[in-house]
Structures are given as structure tokens and as C-alpha cells.
């Protein structure tokens, strides 16, 4: 059945391709900043919030343009998905910035519309990612490093007035019982592109990566799941592979 579906899909794509003058393989480079949020529950953590954090991503888009309105593409990407756990009120000053790096492989369909050179497009697809590494940087109150050891009995105005803060900036140590390093998700994007000499394409895209899998393994009952929601602005450029080949093997 799967073979049949795949064959039909491939046949349809070739049919579409045959209807068009421009069936081209392209590759390029893309990158840009992103803002990542960890979506979870902190209902039982008073004075705690999860803030989004900026990161960046860079990728190598490779795709096949079936027609001037449809292309299939992927882009092996190095992407940061960061977030910040921030304590508030009496606990102000306590935080943990989580810098997480993923190797991500998206696959998406690009639907283009508009004029000949300047066009709009919508990307829809999915991705698989591997949580490559992490770094944590923050401050936590240190229970065995008290501020008032002379019994001055001054009421502290914050937790860091009670216990000295421990500042850390270290690699995150993965816990195989807890951390789910494989992430699957969806991609939605909206952008504009400009085509130059029918060879080069430049584009600017707002992209949303929505993780569909928990950042943790399911290791306990009543576990609060954690999902990355990543909003990025991507600037990219692609070139027709045919053009590269013809340039490389051009006879002088």
C-alpha cells in the first residue's frame, strides 16, 4: 500500500513537472535569528516563569522545484532552541538560561504565488531533530553558603540575601532517564522571494517550528510535558544546481 501511495505521489509530481517549463534542483544557504519558548506547566512552581530566549540557526537548503508554484525542500540545520527559567518576587536574581543546540532536518513543501520575480510563498512540512548539546548558565541560592553567619538577624529582602548565589555556566549533562534527545515537529512558514536571472532566488521567511514530541522521556505518572515552540526569521539564497554545473564545466 505504501509503495502504491509513493508511486502515485511520484507520478503526480512528474506529471506536474511535465506541465512546467522549470523543473530544477537548487541549493543554497539560509540563516537567521529565532525566539524559542518552552511550553510547559509551572502551576506548582510559585514565583517561577519560563521566558523565551533568542537563538539563531543556519542551514543548507536543498530542494527540487517541480513548477514555479511548488517545490519540495529540505535544509540540514544547526539551530538553537533556548529558554530561560526565571524566579520572581523574593526570588528575583535566581534564573537558569538554557542554551540547547539541535541538528534538525526539515522536509517541507513550498507553495509559491505572485509575480514572475517577486513572489510570496507558504512552507508546510515537518522536521526531525537531534538535541546535540546544551549549556546552562544561571544563579541559584546556595543553601550551604549562608550570608548571615554572624547572627545579625537582619531580615533579608531576597533569597540571595539569605544564601549567597552560586553562579554557573556549564555544559548541560544529559540524563538518559529523563531527556528525550529526538524531537519531531511541524514547520509552517510564510515569506517572500525574489528571483534574479531565473537562477538565483533570495528569500525572507517567518518560520514556526512546533515540536510535537516532549523534550523528556515519559518516565513518570502525571508528568508535565515540555515542548519547544520556535519562531524564526530566515534569510536565504538559493541557486539552480544546473547553473552551478554549467559554470564549473563551461568550456573556455
Amino acid at each position, binding site marked *: 500500500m505504501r509503495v502504491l501511495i509513493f508511486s502515485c505521489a511520484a507520478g503526480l509530481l512528474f506529471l*506536474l513537472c511535465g*506541465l512546467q517549463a522549470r523543473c530544477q534542483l537548487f541549493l543554497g544557504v539560509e540563516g537567521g535569528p529565532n525566539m524559542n519558548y518552552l*511550553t*510547559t*506547566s*509551572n*502551576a*506548582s*512552581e*510559585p514565583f*517561577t516563569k519560563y521566558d523565551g530566549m533568542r537563538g539563531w540557526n543556519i542551514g543548507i537548503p536543498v530542494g527540487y522545484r517541480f*513548477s514555479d*508554484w*511548488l517545490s519540495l525542500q529540505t535544509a540540514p540545520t544547526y539551530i538553537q532552541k533556548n529558554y530561560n*527559567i526565571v524566579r520572581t518576587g*523574593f526570588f528575583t536574581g535566581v534564573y*537558569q538560561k538554557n542554551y540547547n543546540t539541535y541538528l534538525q532536518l526539515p522536509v517541507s*513543501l513550498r*507553495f509559491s*504565488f505572485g509575480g514572475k520575480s517577486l513572489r510570496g510563498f*507558504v512552507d*508546510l512540512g*515537518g522536521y526531525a531533530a537531534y538535541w546535540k548539546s546544551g549549556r*546552562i548558565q544561571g544563579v*541559584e*541560592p*546556595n*543553601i*550551604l*553558603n*549562608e550570608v*548571615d*553567619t*554572624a*547572627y545579625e538577624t537582619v531580615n533579608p529582602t531576597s*533569597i540571595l540575601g*539569605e*544564601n549567597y548565589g*552560586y553562579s*554557573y555556566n*556549564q555544559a548541560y549533562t544529559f*540524563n538518559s*532517564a*529523563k531527556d528525550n534527545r529526538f524531537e519531531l515537529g*511541524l514547520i*509552517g512558514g510564510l515569506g517572500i522571494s525574489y528571483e534574479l536571472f531565473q537562477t538565483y532566488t533570495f528569500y525572507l521567511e517567518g518560520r514556526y517550528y*512546533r*515540536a*510535537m514530541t*516532549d523534550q*523528556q522521556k515519559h*518516565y*513518570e*505518572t*502525571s*508528568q*508535565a*510535558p515540555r*515542548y519547544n515552540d520556535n519562531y524564526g526569521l530566515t534569510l536565504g539564497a538559493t541557486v539552480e544546481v544546473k547553473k552551478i554545473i554549467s559554470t564549473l564545466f563551461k568550456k573556455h
Partner: protein
Amino acid sequence: MKLSIRTFVLRVGFAGAVGVFLLLAGCRKTISSSPEATAYPGDNYPDIFQSFWNGMNTNYVFWGVDKTNWDNVYTVYKPLFDQLTIFDSANEALAEQYFAQMTEGLIDSHYTLEFMLTGNGFSPSQYRKLQTDPNYFTDSAFPGAVLDSLIPAKYIDPASLHIGTDTVNLEGSNEPFTAVSGTINGNILYLYFSAFALSQAGANTYPVFNYFFSVLHSGVPALKGIIIDLRGNGGGEISDLDLLVGQMVTSEYTFGYTRYKNGVNRLDYSPWAPAVVKPWVGGSVNVTVPVVALADHLSVSMSELTTMAIKSLPNGNGKFIGTQTWGANGPLTSSVYFDGGQFTIGSSAFGSTGYMFVYTSSSMFKYINGDIYEGVGVPPDIYARETNAAYLAGDDLVVDKALQYINTK
């Protein structure tokens, strides 16, 4: 014709892709929002159970090290609590029995359940120790007998003897607080105190500590060693660590690490923070002579942490002589300060003291060598234990061993 097919395929394809995208996007698991343990009404047993189980899930700081299968506890005990339909004495007895069974294997050796309706309590570590040795609390002559009639009379140089007893308040209850200090053989400085409540030293005990620290700072010309006797010491205030050990060092040093909960799930922990001893703000000296901590099976909490701090003294001059300690060394402080640790359940239904108070560590402690002694106890460098026979013969075998050790240095 070509254009219309293209438009048709474009629209259908795009609509289909959007539809699939939206359909899949909605498939993400719902974010559960278990409330704080204290937020449950607690006006029925199933609710009490749920709030306790969730509170432990979120606040207990030894998950990952503790082998208790907390999910299995849920599976087994939820149906049992569901059968307790009303609050009466029979159901309360059953509920307390269930709570004890649920927690009897927890390694946190501070851990105590306090049932406010009946005044009963349950300590897993105490339960386990009595299961192993019914005479755990009675087979040692220390601290009372040895201290009252042996050490001051036999070991301490009479002219140097300082001894006193005050009353201090430890976690809401008034307790006698005794301190003894003096020299042994003229050149070994000895200090005993029954709890870490040095900030509360009163008219009778303040002179004892004043004497000890004065001698320490003035440096008895031929001071050969220092004995800090922590046997039978049940612990107390963390700030006493710098006040006591911090007066024997002139630079900060690390003797272990602590970590805390930093999320709602069971394995959400902060990184390990160094547990440090700082030179005391009122002054300190660089002690290079042997410093011996005496501790035993009744040395708990701060006395265990202090023992480990002495073992790790930066000059390498610390030694622990005695027997394996109680095994409650996860530091503990007020529940408002850390995400994990002690909590109360059933406050909405039963008032501010709630149905049950769960006394548990705020953080997990790891010794400098990487070992976690929670539920196990700190092993001595040199084993020595007082016996009734030795006591009756007028000997404190542990002090004897300490003197022997110091005299060989």
C-alpha cells in the same frame, strides 16, 4: 486548460497541506497542570492522597537516587484511599498506616510525616533502624552518661573545665542545650555541644564557647590537637558551620555539593552547587594540628555535615573517629526558600497546620569524593564505639582513640 489544472492542483494541494498541518498541530499532548500540594482542598481522603503524592513527586529531592517506585505507590495506594469515604478514627488509622507503608523505604533520613489530627508521626529512617536493631537508641552509653560523669570528671583538666546547660528553641520546640569545653592533658582542646544552636547560647553555655574559641584563637603554645565531639548531636542551624569550622580556616574551601529541585517533574534538578566553609566573619585562624570529629549513629544532619567539613579541612588535618552516622545530611530549611522540601497538605480543610506536615530535605548533599551518604551515614575514618562495659570501667573508648590518634601525629 493547462492553467486551470495548475490552479486546481495548487488549491487542492495547498488546502490539503494546510489541513494536514493543522490536524497534526492539534495532536500535541495537553499540558497538565498539577497544582501545588498545598492547593488541594484536602477535605476527603482521595484528595489528601493525591496532594501528598503530587507533593512528593514535586518536592522530594532524592528522586533518581532513591529506589522507591513512586508510580507503583500511586497504582497500589490510590484505590485504597478511594475506599476511605469519611473521616473517622478507623479510617484515619488506616490512612496513617498507608502513608507509613508508602514512605517506609524513602532514603531521606530527615523525612517525617506528622499527622495533625492525631499527633502521630512516622519516620522511615527511624523505622528501618529499629527494624534492623531494636536497641538502636538504647545500646549506647552516650551521650548522657558519658558526658555527665566521665568526660568532665576523667578527661578534662579540672582547671580548664567549662560546662553549662541552657534551653534553646529548635524548630519550634524547647530543648536543653549543653556544652562542655576544656583541655585534655593540657594541650588538646575539647568541645562538646548537644545541638547546633550556637546562636542561642545563653548565660550558661556562652562562656563555654567563648572559652573554646578564645583558646583556639590565642593558640595554646603547645596545642597538639582539637576534638569536636558531635556524638548524639541531632543537628540544628546551618549557619553554625561557618561559626565553628570557619574559625579554623583562613580561606574558603569546598567539602561537598548540594542540588535542588528546579522544575515540577521528578528528575528536574539544578546543577550541583559547592558546599563551602568560609572563614568566619568575626575572625579565624589557620589550624594545622589534627582536628578530630567524634560522631556516632546518633549524630544527625548538621553534625554529619560538620563531620564531613572537618574531614575535608584544607590542611588535610581532619579526621572522623567513631561509628557510621545516622544518614540525614540533605540540608533542610524553610519550605518557602526552595522549590523542593517540606510541605503541608490539607490546609484548606484543616486550617494552617493542615492534615499532614511532610518534613523533608530541601536539597541533596554529595560529599566532596562524590559519595551520597543520605540514608547510609558517613563512614568513620577510624572506627571506635563506646560500650557499657567500658563506661562502667571508667573509659570512653572513642575519646581514647582520638587521644591515641592525636598523640601519634
